[in-house]
């Protein structure tokens, strides 16, 4: 199968409009996503991963502005390339993409449905917006979708309200809503974070099944490398609004290069690896606040390999150190 680029993000910069000043949140993010692939976006809380995700659909809050960069989306099957950053955030063009070509799953299944409408209504609404079918057909399609995502008694669940569903069921319903219009890209922003572990595994399985069935590309956002490792073909690690390492999942796990990635992997407990039995290693220090971003490499104040005069000067460029494996660190070149 030939590679088809679906999404290309170039030098994306997002700032927070705070008291008339612009505070950078996302500091120049670049990545590509091929059709049918899963990209894992990993980082600590507040590193800019959710903001990046929301910006792909122009769902950012009023105070957050895209100040630079491009988000190019290839509409396949005779479509054209759209630069999402150029669209009106409340306009008609972006609305066609939202829910139709690109859809999103959110972190809190508890609060991502309105309690005032039935689950069925809220899924059907999206279907009716993006296709020219009758209400009756849309209802049948919704029930079919609910069935597909593993909700028992889909016909009755159609008429249920969100507060009658458990967290896991709501996230299933959310997935049904997200795949309802066969999108080419699904953005999942920490979809399993709020669920307990058994449910988490079920939801991950479900997403994988859906991905295989529909060939949807996924951007999977999480702070949990373990979860992302199960899902993603490629992983991008973010730290303070920058991608600092990016590469195929296996490569990142086997051969991490950036000191932050290495530390991150050391902080995950692993079973079975008895010879390497060891204490979990926390990362020294904590993420600096938005207002005291370090000069140069943003990780320099927590890094064991800090090289004075180099790491404090400017942020290192992402360099390809092996095929498709990019690192932004002065230790490598």
């Amino acid at each position: 199968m030939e590679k088809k680029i679906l999404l290309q993000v170039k030098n994306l910069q997002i700032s927070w409009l705070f008291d008339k000043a612009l505070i950078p949140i996302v500091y120049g993010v670049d990545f590509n996503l091929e059709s049918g692939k899963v990209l894992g976006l990993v980082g600590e809380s507040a590193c800019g991963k959710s903001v990046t995700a929301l910006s792909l659909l122009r769902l950012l809050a009023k105070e957050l502005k895209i100040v630079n960069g491009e988000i190019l989306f290839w509409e396949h099957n005779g479509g054209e390339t759209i630069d999402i950053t150029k669209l009106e955030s409340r306009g008609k063009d972006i609305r066609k993409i939202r829910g139709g070509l690109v859809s999103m799953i959110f972190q809190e299944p508890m609060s991502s449905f309105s309690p005032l409408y039935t689950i069925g209504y809220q899924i059907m609404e999206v279907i009716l917006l993006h296709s020219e079918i009758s209400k009756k057909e849309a209802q049948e399609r919704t029930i079919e979708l609910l069935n597909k995502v593993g909700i028992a008694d889909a016909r009755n669940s159609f008429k249920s309200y969100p507060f009658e569903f458990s967290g896991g069921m709501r996230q299933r319903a959310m997935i049904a809503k997200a795949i309802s219009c066969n999108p080419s890209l699904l953005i999942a922003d920490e979809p399993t974070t709020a669920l307990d572990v058994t449910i988490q595994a079920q939801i991950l399985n479900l997403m994988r099944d859906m991905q295989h069935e529909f060939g949807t590309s996924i951007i999977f956002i999480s702070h949990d490398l373990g979860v992302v490792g199960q899902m993603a073909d490629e992983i991008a690690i973010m730290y303070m609004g920058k991608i600092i390492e990016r590469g195929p999942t296996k490569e990142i796990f086997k051969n991490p290069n950036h000191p932050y990635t290495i530390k991150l992997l050391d902080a995950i407990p692993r079973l079975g690896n008895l010879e390497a039995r060891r204490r979990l290693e926390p990362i020294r220090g904590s993420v600096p606040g938005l207002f005291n971003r370090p000069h140069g490499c943003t990780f320099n104040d927590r890094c064991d390999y800090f090289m004075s005069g180099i790491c404090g000067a400017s942020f290192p460029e992402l360099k390809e150190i092996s095929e498709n494996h990019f690192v932004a660190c002065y230790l490598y070149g």
Partner: protein
Amino acid sequence: MLNLIMRRIVTTLVTLFLISVVAFIIIQLPPGDYVDAWAGKKTQGGTIITQAELNNMRVRLGLDKPLYQQYFKWIGDLMKGNLGFSFEYHRPVAEVIGERLSMTLLIAFSTLAFTYILAIALGVYSAVKQYSIGDNIATVLGYIGLATPGFLFALILMYLGQKWFGMSVGGLFSFKFQGAPWSWAKFRDLLGHLWVPVVVLGMAGTAFQLRTMRATLLDELNKMYVTSARSGGIPEFNLLMRYPVRMALNPIVATLGWELSKIISGAPIIGLVLSLPTLGPLYITALLDQDIYLSGALILIYCILVIIGTFISDMLLMILDPRMRMKERS
């Protein structure tokens, strides 16, 4: 739903019974009775009245009997649909009230509609365009509206109406339509006068509900379910109305009964100032004259209005919010 309505009717009847007892006691609390008040007015006019005449009058009006007997006579008549007899007007209470009841209801419910339509529309605008010029103007007007006493506002409006437009803004009809049969012209004349008491009575409530609407909606606008719905591609206006606005209506609708009772209790003073042909001024004079059956009937009517308001608000809440329906079912 039917079950609920039945239950509400029963509780309403119990409430009304309790109110009737309390109201009757309160009416009797001021020293003296209707005969004393009547004699006081007469003797001020120079008429000489003997004690025997007063006693005769008490017997005739039934005021010589013990309080509980008077109460049971009144409540017994009420059951039969007889509101009693007004001493002051020498006419059945039902007749005295009847003329004015429709105007009172008209003003109360017009005020309620005015309050809610304006408060919701301006509240939504203010929240969506937070800190815009329009929002700031609405905020300032809102605080003025909250801080100005209704009767003062009524006096100012009357003064300005007289001075600038040379028209009398009191009453509900121009002089030539008073007592005239209903016609298109009379209706238009009514609308021309109606806005004054509606604005005066509705001002404080509108300001209050506007603030509530704005604050609640600002909270709702940032909720996850709004972003989630937006990510499905719903057009902005539909999204706003279907998701956050409908949610933000809850506290506003929940206070509807309360708002109606505020309108009703504000009405007597405003009615007096604007000389409206409503129950309000009648209520005040009935209390002053110790016209017990008239004031008792009026208190009951006011209470029924408040109960109806609360009932409407509960019904609307159940229509708006499925969680309320579930709670009611279980």
